[in-house]
């Protein structure tokens, strides 16, 4: 290569994959399409099953409470479908817009995820304290009931406490790991956004 020629490099770049590579690509694409179709089908079927079960339960027991709970379940289902649809639309806008728009959208998404995770982590301690306080205040033990029996077994109490503390520690580990990953992703996204911003500024200065 004696001269830096993008046209010639383009010819090198656009070499077609060999038939084996194309066949592998076709298999990958087929698998992706199959999985996506199954996923869509399962979503629709799950929604229909939930709606059907709620309707059957509500109609077979037409009391006011059953209708209220059934109605709430249907509303929750509809909300979930609408939310999923909005998320898909937002993802689609990111895919078909410019890279800058996609990065802005991703930054907003990760910031929202981080905020939710932080709120969840911060609320864990007060929620635990409240739960314990509620348990203490509503403790109405009487001899012979299962709660009294449970408190009379120190080994069992210690095992349940250890299990609860272990579960909490594992949950917190995953929450903090997820927060760390989100922060790192946010840093990378911000870095990429900054790179595009600099390119844009240099373009403006040259005009």
């Amino acid at each position: 290569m004696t001269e830096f020629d993008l046209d010639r490099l383009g010819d090198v770049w656009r070499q077609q994959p060999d038939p084996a590579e194309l066949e592998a690509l076709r298999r990958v694409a087929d698998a992706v399409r199959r999985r996506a179709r199954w996923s869509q089908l399962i979503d629709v079927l799950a929604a229909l099953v939930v709606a059907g079960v709620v309707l059957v339960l509500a109609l077979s027991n037409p009391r006011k409470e059953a209708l209220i709970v059934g109605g709430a379940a249907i509303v929750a289902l509809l909300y979930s479908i609408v939310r999923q649809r909005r998320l898909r639309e937002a993802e689609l806008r990111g895919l078909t817009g410019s890279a800058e728009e996609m990065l802005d959208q991703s930054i907003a998404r990760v910031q929202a995820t981080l905020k939710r995770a932080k709120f969840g982590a911060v609320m864990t301690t007060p929620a635990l304290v409240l739960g314990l306080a509620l348990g203490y205040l509503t403790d109405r033990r009487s001899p012979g009931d299962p709660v009294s029996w449970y408190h009379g077994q120190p080994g069992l109490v210690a095992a349940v406490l250890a299990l609860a503390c272990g579960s909490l520690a594992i949950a917190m580990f995953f929450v903090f790991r997820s927060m760390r990953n989100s922060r790192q992703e946010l840093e990378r996204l911000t870095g990429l956004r900054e790179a595009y911003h600099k390119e844009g500024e240099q373009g403006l200065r040259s005009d």
Partner: protein
Amino acid sequence: MVADPDTNMAGPNGVENDATPPFDRIVADYGGLISRIAMSYEADPTLREDLTQQIFLAVWQALPSYRADATLKTFIAKVAQNRSISYVARQARQPRVAEIPETLEAEDGTPEQHAIHANEREALLEATRQLAMPQREVIILVLEGFTYTEIGDMLNIAPNALALRLSRAKAALKKILEPGR
């Protein structure tokens, strides 16, 4: 009559009418483009297959929003690039970059010309992976043979800004490919 993939679309609703080239056709016509874009963002073959799957899924999901105001090729390239950029941002580690051969002399007419050509392509791929993201995006589109008008539309930037970005990208690519010059 075979449908023209540049003016028709396929949808993820499973219904493929006369105006819709089947997804298989899209894979056959643009699989090479998708594969090259995936290669220019991820060097590791296993991870690249994962990225390629993500791109195919993204194309499949985005196809219903395709309007024939641009060619299907530009639409697919844009979706593939955006998915690849978001993939890079999500990666916990930086995508692997291999060593670049010192020279890329390919036009020497030796019997191993084909192998050298393949090496040159690999070196070019590795070099594009080293470019900053905005420059990589524009270089890939130029190497794919898109016109400057198409690239400006895809990146949503003015011709002057595109010319500057391309010139910087070309200089950076040259520096990587021909470090001694």
